[in-house]
């Protein structure tokens, strides 16, 4: 069993559309949507939720104004600048800034601070027309997305082992911060989706630097390659230089958006398009690369 994680650094490069296209082509796979912050894969795969789990993303401090003596110690000690005086001059916790470290609670001389559990995040185990899927829904503004990614990847791996699935397809988050790091850690292969723009290339390079530090094999595809052939060539040279196999180049095609509107994968919507053919070839290379 192998896990292949689709990443791009830059948002909007086409990770989810690629994951969806693979869904149509793959057999005996498990899906995992690691973009827990703005998950979209479910819009195409239509998961039927079988299990719902609560994800405990930590605690938030709360100050009891009745016992608070306004000594200012908590405000002074908070490294996250989460405690400020409210309109009546009493200290108050901004829940969006609070990191849940509980330092204020522990040092409060009059025990006026308590911690409240945060139960705003959920993750799901579902069935889709292409196979099982693990995905999540984070409450707005929540912390700890990296840990949630780790959690759902573990579940996807368990399901894959149970069902003897050959491959886990993980749709990754944008960026290179905590959810991206949590996605890369311990995966078997990263598929880099690069769009031929200055920013797309810049971001892909930063992501590659991250993946390289984990010693994980990388393969790449260029999406919307015909938008800028010059940069596509530059990306090709970059990949070559770093010995990253280029599995294929996907043309820009408005049909991709049309398929999204129809809530279908591009392979379902337009099986004979150049895009679908190219995706077929790329998927074959991934399947054959069974080492």
């Amino acid at each position, binding site marked *: 069993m192998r896990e292949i994680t689709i990443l791009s650094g830059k948002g909007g490069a086409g990770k989810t559309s690629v994951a969806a296209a693979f869904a149509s082509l793959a057999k005996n796979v498990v899906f995992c949507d690691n973009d827990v912050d703005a998950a979209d894969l479910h819009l195409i795969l239509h998961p039927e939720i079988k299990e719902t789990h609560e994800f*405990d993303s*930590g605690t938030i401090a709360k100050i009891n104004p009745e016992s608070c003596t306004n000594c200012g110690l908590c405000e002074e000690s908070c490294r996250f600048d989460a405690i400020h005086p409210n309109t009546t001059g009493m200290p108050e916790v901004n829940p969006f800034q609070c990191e849940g470290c509980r330092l204020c609670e522990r040092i409060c001389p009059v025990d006026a601070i308590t911690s409240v559990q945060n139960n705003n995040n959920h993750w799901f185990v579902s069935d889709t027309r292409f196979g099982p899927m693990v995905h999540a829904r984070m409450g707005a503004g929540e912390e*700890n997305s990296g*840990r949630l990614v780790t959690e759902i990847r*573990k579940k996807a*791996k*368990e399901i894959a*082992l*149970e069902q003897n699935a050959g491959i886990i397809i993980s749709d990754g988050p944008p960026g290179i911060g905590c959810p991206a790091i949590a996605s890369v*850690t*311990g995966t078997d292969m990263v598929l880099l989706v690069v769009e031929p723009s200055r920013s797309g290339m810049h971001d892909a390079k930063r992501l590659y630097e991250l993946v390289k530090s984990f010693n994980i094999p990388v393969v790449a595809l260029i999406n919307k390659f015909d938008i800028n052939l010059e940069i596509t060539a530059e990306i090709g040279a970059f990949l070559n230089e770093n010995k990253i196999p280029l599995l294929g180049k996907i043309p820009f095609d408005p049909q991709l958006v049309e398929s999204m509107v129809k809530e279908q994968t591009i392979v379902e919507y337009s099986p004979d398009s150049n895009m679908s053919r190219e995706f077929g070839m790329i998927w074959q290379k991934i399947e054959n690369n069974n080492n």
Partner: protein
Amino acid sequence: MKIAITSEKKGLRSKFDLRFGRAGWFCIYDTENGEVIFTENENKDANGGAGTKTAEKMAELNVSQIISGDFGPKAKALLEKFKIQMVILDEGNKTINEIIERLKNKSTINSN
């Protein structure tokens, strides 16, 4: 020598747990006197860092070898520092008893 085996539940007929930091229980098998003790993993629902917590527990329990399905990178780094040997076994369908029998027969842990 003490060997820890990750276990889903308590008891020899429990299934082998493929997870390390989030395993349900640990079976501690002492090769010298054949003693078997089960200890619950109180860190399995930890808010992050379950692997490092569990590695710490293993060191406290004087374990020399751990048999599990997977070790996270943080746990792995710590276990190396503690000089605890990690053995990866990919057979989630095995029972703890079957694994101990294999250890007794001194055959290799990994069948493949």
